[in-house]
């Protein structure tokens, strides 16, 4: 699956796209594929403050529970309520299924993130393929 070129990525396998100062965050195709069937997503509350590179929740598959790391700092403005009942949407469409939306407190953090090409290279190196 192609990694959208208008998104940015973390080495912890989250993606983010920003529109009007609000970042939309999800996990990558590589992440969902490694985790397997996702059964539960633990998300923060609207209004919670996040710090870049800190955990903001977790995603649970039948194999493991993995922490979610925020690509940016800011305030949570929306959580994807659909994931409460249909967490497997992440497996089906990882790059179109957001987990949370965050109002960025420092727009410069975007620049430190990986672009699609750099992330793809990182994943290739990590998997050795």
């Amino acid at each position, binding site marked *: 699956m192609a990694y959208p070129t208008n998104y940015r990525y973390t080495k912890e396998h989250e993606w983010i796209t920003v529109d009007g100062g609000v970042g939309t965050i999800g996990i990558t195709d590589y992440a969902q594929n490694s985790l397997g069937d996702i059964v539960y997503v633990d998300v923060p509350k609207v209004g919670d403050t996040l710090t870049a590179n800190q955990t903001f929740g977790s995603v*649970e598959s*039948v*194999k*493991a*529970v993995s922490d979610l790391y925020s690509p940016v700092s800011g305030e949570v403005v929306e959580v994807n309520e659909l994931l409460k009942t249909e967490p497997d949407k992440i497996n089906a469409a990882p790059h179109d299924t957001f987990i949370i939306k965050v109002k960025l407190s420092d727009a410069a953090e975007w620049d430190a993130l990986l672009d699609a090409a750099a992330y793809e290279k990182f994943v290739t190196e990590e998997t050795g393929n």
Partner: protein
Amino acid sequence: MRYLPKSPAEREQMLAAIGAHAIDELFASIPAVYRLQRDLDIPRQQAESEIIGYFKAAGQKNATDYASFLGAGAYRHHRPVVIDAMVQRGEFLTSYTPYQAEITQGTLQAIFEFQTMIAELTGMDVANASMYDGSTGAAEAVLMAARITGRHKTVVARSVHPEYREVLATYLRFREMPVSEVGYVAATGRVDLAALEAAVTEETAAVLIQSPNFFGTIEDVAAIAEIAHRKGALLIVTIAEAVSLGVVKPPVEADIVAMEAQSFGVALSYGGPFCGVLATKEQYLRQIPGRLAGQTVDANGYRGFVLTLSTREQHIRREKATSNICTNQALVALMATIFLTVYGKEGIRELAEHNLAKAHYTAKALAAAPGAKLLFEGAPRFHEFVLKTDELPEAWQKRLFDEKIVGGVDLGRWYPELAGATLWCTTEVVTREQIDTAAKTLAAVPVEA
């Protein structure tokens, strides 16, 4: 599995295999000064017949034929003989905890049935596979409430079992989670609601109460839940006497129930093992510590059982696990499961009514003694009550011992303000004759010359 000691020849063989000359060489990394240079100072070995004789003699020191009015968190109930016959079956006894979980379907099914019965009894949606005991269950419930609320302060009622409160303090000390205590109303022994209202704040993760409480009094759980929930705190109700659920309304207003299930067919055994229970509402399922058995269907469509949500346990999630509880009291929980199955819904209710009636009969009979009166009369209670006597407890306790009766326990040990007041319990195993003898003996206050 055989437990045979090694012969000297076998030791030589093992040393030769690893290239060592003497056992001392294996401890060479420990400086000589710290090594014991002599044999342990213990008695010589004994023959099997001598060991049996030793334990028979020691066993005769036990006071076995006394009537007991002790309760306070450990209760003497009749244990149907089928319990020990069942739990001693090799299939249950040797695989007492499911390390290779899915192979031991029978164990998982028993745990699943235990969870189901506990959830029904406590009025909660889900119960785990059991905890060490009631006190650790209560402490784990507080940690769970802190995870759910993101807060770290706890308010505990002083009417919670004093030893449960000590265990909680031990759990919380190094997590730097502050605990504050709320007193009881002198007339009823119930939680002081005004003091509770003042103690609970927006930083409170959990309010912990016990009902029936340590004095045997049934708390107003709904009113306490209201106070806790108004500030966004969770209410944890702990129950030391599980049999009370046969007549007392389950604490459905609670968010978490942490219970001691010893009364369900578990022998007192000088203080353990007991059987803790943790039950909660479905929305908190993923924050439950310990293990959880679930029901599923296999590839052929047959019913089967699995350990579920174990992705949050420490063998998978390491330091990020929900809790560091990595076992449960499977065999002891099995005793409780068999007990509940033998008694059934009606049986548990009858048992509880029996206990209730006998305790109220005892309370009335004892309070008739000169200089004796009941405390905390202003609230409903189950099978424990507090008695205050003009005479010092040591005096009448001695008279009761002579009649082969163990009377109530002095509350001054935990509550200085209640020194001389004693906590009594009557269960179904105490006979009416023993109750009458206790009352008569208590009333026989020596006349001063």
